[in-house]
């Protein structure tokens, strides 16, 4: 497996990727758009992109992922895709009847320079229906950038201030970031336990994890509604979870409707969950309820009881920047040593909130006295080479890590997006205290199964 990846670090300066650790903007935009109720994402470009994006999301969620496409041909590529977009809007409303169409662009329509707002303005849009868009050029950033751009468009198109004189209503906007529906649901549950009202956007719970009923619902019950999106402009404040995926929208909302925001890590692991609850507590002067304190206590109990399973173990973590940062922090709080941390998403100054993946992770490692490799805009070829030079006890990342795990015979915990070879992940949160328990279960299982596998008969333990 991957025999051609040499141990010797080779200087590569082409800027090309070998085994990428990111994908393109539109797929993230499509996922974000699914978090609006009764919304059909529309891919403005050739049909191939839409097909690929639906395919990948479907494989991760194992649920219908509906989206339409402008189906460009060579003519549209030469003369512009405005006509295709107008025809699409007409056909989509007539045939598929969503309440909302969320258009995202592709590298093709971006290279041509199609003017989407004008095309929307010139389209026939039935009464009560909405069309909005986000520019998502695939040659910038990654799928996380696309998610961020589409989430931001929800603010720029819909958020409005209804209350006069800077008055605010007592609820919080929560922007959950690019996580699974179960994570969004868990974050909502934590907020509800706190007794705090909220609007979450986007919210894919109930959309891409819809139940089996014997009937296909093109627009399942979940998703943020347009009235809710409008109302986000009257919130007391906004919590952005994950800088890369969420902060841009929070900043726009601050600018547009004067809603202050805090930008937090994705609440994965104990510290980040603490911070999330503390932020809610501070803003609403509400005590953390018994129930959550108990959940936290249980988590600490397990962490302590099992610390010897993972303390001092070297781990490599890769995936999307927001979840990787939080996961790194959690591994540190378990006493593990994250010696290789990598994201494919560029960590540069691409708009707001996107700077400093490397700085942030390095700071965490330094504080813990761990010396490790950290890279943004990296690829899995690099990660694999790092691992060959400094082997690890555990690999954490999305499905694509399985090649490296097999090549180097390393225990592997699947985490992040996409997970194409195991089901259930979208249904089980990794956020909050309970999510942290699940992560401990997965990490311990992986490490201990390996111990069992490798133990000589005489060393094979019943109790561990």
């Amino acid at each position, binding site marked *: 497996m991957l025999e*051609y990846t040499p141990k010797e670090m080779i200087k590569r300066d082409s800027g*090309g990727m070998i*085994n990428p650790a990111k*994908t393109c903007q539109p797929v993230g935009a499509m996922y974000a758009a699914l978090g609006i109720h009764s919304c059909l994402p529309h891919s403005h470009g050739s049909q191939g992109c839409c*097909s690929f994006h639906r395919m990948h999301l*479907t494989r991760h969620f194992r649920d219908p992922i509906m989206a*339409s496409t402008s189906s460009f041909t060579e003519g549209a590529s030469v003369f512009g895709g405005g006509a295709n977009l107008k025809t699409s809007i007409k056909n989509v409303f007539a*045939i598929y009847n969503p309440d909302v169409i969320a258009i995202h662009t592709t*590298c093709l329509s971006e290279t041509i320079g199609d003017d989407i707002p004008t095309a929307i303005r010139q389209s026939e849009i039935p009464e009560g229906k909405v069309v909005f868009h986000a520019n998502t050029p*695939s040659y910038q950033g990654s799928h996380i950038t696309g998610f961020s751009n589409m989430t931001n468009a929800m603010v720029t198109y819909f958020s409005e201030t209804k209350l006069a004189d800077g008055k605010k209503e007592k609820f919080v906007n929560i922007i959950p970031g690019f996580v699974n529906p179960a994570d969004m649901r868990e974050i909502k549950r934590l907020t509800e336990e706190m007794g705090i009202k909220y609007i979450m956007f986007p919210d894919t719970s109930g959309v891409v994890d819809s139940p089996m009923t014997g009937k296909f619902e093109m627009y399942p019950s979940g998703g943020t509604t347009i009235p809710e999106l409008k109302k986000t402009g009257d919130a007391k404040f906004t919590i952005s979870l994950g800088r890369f995926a969420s902060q841009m929208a929070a900043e726009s909302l601050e600018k547009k409707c004067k809603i202050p925001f805090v930008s937090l890590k994705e609440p994965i692991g104990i510290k980040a969950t603490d911070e999330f609850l503390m932020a809610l507590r501070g803003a609403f002067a509400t005590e953390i309820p018994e129930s959550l304190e108990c959940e936290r206590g249980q988590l600490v109990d397990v962490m302590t009881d099992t610390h010897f399973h993972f303390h001092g173990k070297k781990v490599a973590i890769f995936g999307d920047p927001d979840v990787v940062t939080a996961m790194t922090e959690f591994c540190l709080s378990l006493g593990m040593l994250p010696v290789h941390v990598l994201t494919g998403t560029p960590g540069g100054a691409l708009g707001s909130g996107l700077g400093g993946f490397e700085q942030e992770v390095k700071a965490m490692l330094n504080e813990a006295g761990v010396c490790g490799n950290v890279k943004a805009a990296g690829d899995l070829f690099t990660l694999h080479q790092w691992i060959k030079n400094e082997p690890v006890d555990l690999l954490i990342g999305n499905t694509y890590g399985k090649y490296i795990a097999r090549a180097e015979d390393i225990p592997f915990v699947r985490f992040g997006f996409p997970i194409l070879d195991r089901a259930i992940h979208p249904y089980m949160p990794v956020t909050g205290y309970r999510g942290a328990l699940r992560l401990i279960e997965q990490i311990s299982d992986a490490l201990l199964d390996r111990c069992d596998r490798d133990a000589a008969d005489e060393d094979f333990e019943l109790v561990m």
Partner: protein
Amino acid sequence: MAITEEKLGEVLGVYPEKVLVNRRRHIVLKEPDTETAQQIEANTRTLPGIITNRGCAFAGCKGVVVGPIKDMVHIVHGPVGCAFYTWGTRRNKAKAGDDGKNYVNYCFTTDMQESDVVFGGEKKLAKLIDEAVAIFHPNAISIAATCPVGLIGDDIGAVARAAEERHGIQVLAFQCEGYKGVSQSAGHHIANNMLMDKVIGNSDVETCDEPYAVNLLGEYNIGGDGWEIARILKDIGYHVVCVMTGDGSYEDMKLAHTADLNLVQCHRSINYIAEMLEIKYGTPWLKVNFIGIKSTCDSLRAMAAYFGNKDLMQKTEEIIARELARIQPVIDQYRKVCEGKTAFCFVGGSRGHHYQGLFSEIGIETVLAGYEFAHRDDYEGRLVIPTIKKDADSKNIPDLHVEADPKRFRIKIAPERLAKLKEKFPFNEYKGLIVDMKEGTIVVDDLNHFETEEFIKILHPDIVSSGIKDKYVIQKMGIPSKQLHSYDYSGPYSGFNGAVIFARDISMSFASPTWNYIVPPWKNQPFLNATINGGDQ
């Protein structure tokens, strides 16, 4: 229940006028058997806004045809996405050959950034080629262009030529931008034309020393299909020169001109190569189908008849008898579970037809079939090829014209004998899907989401075979769905062993107890009764 013209009108009535007119031409209600197939529209644009299963030319070129060639490094020139989605997603299995080279688990892309789109990406591409050669030492390299490449005017052909000079290996540049043509099919053409032009015959080897040398064309080794076919062929005594392209290698492909016969599995993606190979080298082709027991046997018998050797024919019959004795009893068991059921069979460009025989061998009748990206000849047979008019979208896929190779062309079978064989077997011939469909069934080209849902509601199939994008739509309706692009990660489904695995998988999808839980027990039990039975009052 069959679909009548009237019923069809009702269903399509939802469509805006233009869509209605367009879609009606892509649907055929099969009339009583006639000599000629009914006409259908195919290989034309999908209308904007329609939720189609189709992909793009890039997907057809890099994803389907070129990607599986194992001893080459395939570089996708474009933003990261196109490369990412075609990395490991198509299950074209490959084992390294004698030279140990197999790069199918790697994914290479120039990962174009904004500055590359503005200033051009040629330099970056050239550098990445250099790195790939330095690290991986492939036998050859491919470059696949994605949408923006053509628009910004990167000359990938020039980059390829320069790289060939630097490295002394072939670098093939495929201009398969996603907007070309109307589906993956355009990409198959672009890919195959280049392989025909630049790779096949690019060798000093003049003849094949092995007897009964064949090429297996249009077989992509999904789930190991090609390996099961190879097992059978080897047992009988054939020598496979090259496979295009599943588990195929660049090195073997160079020798394709030395084969005595070309076997065409997927007509759609490769029939024109088969034709060109005949013109250039004199090698006839046979339309085979290794999906289904009868089709496999028919194909093997036709092959044996072609070579006309008594021992070979006898060996063929022995192997068929041996395999049937082994698998038939097992299939019969599964058939009990499946008997009397009906299926939809909508797959790429060949399988919508290929699988119908296998379905019927386990007792399932196909009531609706169609292709995602086929042309009219795949539906109506090769007779229509001369009558198909080129439209704007097909015009931009360059045709390749070949002539007889003065040195290498040889008559491989006496024309009279071939003519005789043609009476019985499909040499240089394919009759298409429609003639094999029963009266009252329905044929749909480029079936879309709306129609899938509606036809399911009317016809209530017991199983729908299609792809990943509609799999869960179908299953939400309580109907098992079998992916016939990826086989739901099972397979092989070809040949004799494949038939058993297919029968097992299909019967499993019916027999699974999980379907019984869709309706919760309280749904059909009145609340009052439940309380009384519980003895509370």
